[in-house]
């Protein structure tokens, strides 16, 4: 018996080891095929450090923290742009979550019996989340002109795609007994969803949405790269025009904001999940 167990463990170990080897082999092959040159990385790693070193010096050559007033000279403008960025992320998240909410039930196997409908909704959601936000933003900037509107739309569409899929998975894991109970009492599909499904999934939906908001703040920060509003415009300009200390100042403000949002949403999410367990 002991030997059989030992053999089983050995077999499992061998399988794990084999899996790891395959994983690393595949990584090496993809590096080679896509011409990711490790040598180049080693040669130029110093350049990255040098760049960051320069961003931490003022034009006078002094370290940035010796003169915060000079370093953060643009804080009023940046603060305003940061608020814009947050509003773009917020609006995009709220609208995208609402759209994803309405679509997720149609994509869930346990609620939508019609295969063609489910297929169509799923492929649509897939398309929405596969195209990167920044690409949508570029397209919308061409269509609607510069400003925050293209940014909001881009985040909305991507959020709808991602949340629709995630929500659908939550829906597919619900307890079906209440659904059966509501159906058996003559409730229509919308009523079944409203009463037997939504109460079960709402805490999870809220939690995922908060997580998404956090991701979307980061997404909105680069919307300005393509002229879709927010602080990204100033950041990309500072990088291109070699205003080194501005780059670090904007990044500092961004990182601080994201950290605060992280902390806040995490606290909220824990409260939501706590209530979910009760």
């Amino acid at each position, binding site marked *: 018996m002991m030997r059989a167990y030992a053999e089983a463990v050995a077999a499992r170990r061998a399988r794990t080891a084999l899996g790891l080897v395959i994983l690393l082999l595949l990584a090496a092959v993809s590096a080679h095929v896509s011409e990711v040159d490790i040598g180049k990385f080693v040669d130029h790693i110093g350049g990255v450090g040098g760049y960051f070193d320069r961003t931490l010096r003022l034009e006078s050559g002094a370290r940035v923290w010796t003169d915060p007033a000079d370093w953060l000279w643009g804080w009023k403008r940046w603060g305003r742009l940061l608020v814009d960025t947050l509003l773009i992320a917020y609006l995009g998240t709220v609208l995208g979550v609402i759209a994803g909410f309405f679509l997720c039930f149609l994509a869930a196997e346990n609620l939508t019996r019609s295969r063609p409908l489910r297929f169509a909704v799923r492929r649509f959601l897939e398309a929405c989340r596969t195209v990167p936000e920044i690409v949508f933003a570029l397209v919308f900037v061409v269509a609607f002109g510069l400003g925050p509107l293209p940014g909001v739309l881009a985040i909305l569409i991507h959020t709808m795609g991602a949340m629709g899929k995630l929500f659908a998975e939550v829906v597919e894991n619900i307890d079906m007994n209440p659904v059966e109970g509501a159906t058996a*009492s003559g409730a229509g599909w919308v009523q079944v969803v409203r009463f037997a499904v939504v109460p079960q999934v709402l805490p999870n939906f809220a939690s995922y949405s908060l997580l998404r908001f956090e991701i979307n703040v980061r997404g909105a920060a680069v919307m300005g790269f393509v002229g879709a509003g927010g602080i990204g415009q100033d950041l990309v300009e500072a990088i291109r025009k070699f205003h080194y200390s501005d780059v670090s100042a904007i990044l500092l403000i961004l990182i601080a904001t994201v950290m605060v949002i992280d902390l806040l949403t995490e606290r909220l999410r824990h409260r939501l999940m706590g209530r979910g367990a009760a």
Partner: protein
Amino acid sequence: MLRLEGLVKNFGDKRAVDNVSLAVPAGQLVGVIGRSGAGKSTLLRMINRLVDPTSGRIEYDGIDVTALQRADLRAWRARSAMIFQQFNLVGRLDVLTNVLMGRLNKVSTTRSVLKLWSDEDKALALAALEQFGIAGIAAQRAESLSGGQQQRVAIARALVQEPDMILADEPVASLDPRNTRIVMDALRRVNRHFGITVLCNLHSLDLAREYCDRLVGISAGRVVFDDVPAALTEHVARELYGLEADEVMDMPASRAPAGVVAVAA
């Protein structure tokens, strides 16, 4: 009058219900008995159309239930209320909302989605809870209740559907002896008081004998017995239950309901 004619249900190549024909006059309390897996549950679910029959016909007062679609089908489901072994309430909603869900078929989608219940509906739901002595817990979440309370809430939900018939699928199988009594008494009350036909799947023979006007024995999907409880001899019961016979008989229901014994065995 409910009429089943040659009802058949196949799951894959397994025949769950095999050519069942039955006529149930209004107002009867019928116990459907048989061992687990005999097809009792599938039979009841077909009547409510939660499960569609493979062939055969269900007719109620001249309506061809098997042909009903969409709104007509939902209206029929409201008329043939179901009670489940696992209660099938929505745990996160309060008791009154759970009972009000029995009104969904009669409320417009828009009003119900916004939970704009009429005062009449709310009064009806509260009265239904009052019937079973649990109006005091109307504001509690359904998941916080005991099994016996949950099943009574489920019966109240069935009642506000104003049904012609209640189909109870093993309503006491997950309850302790005391709650078994309370729930069976509630079903009998619904039957005697409101004249609602009750079809009740039961595992325990003693409960079936005690509460039902008529027993229908199912074995391997077929009706093998259909008569008053008194006619159910030990010989027939042994045939019906086979090896399980000793578990379901001669066991006072007040001490151990069949469900508990069956699980323990």
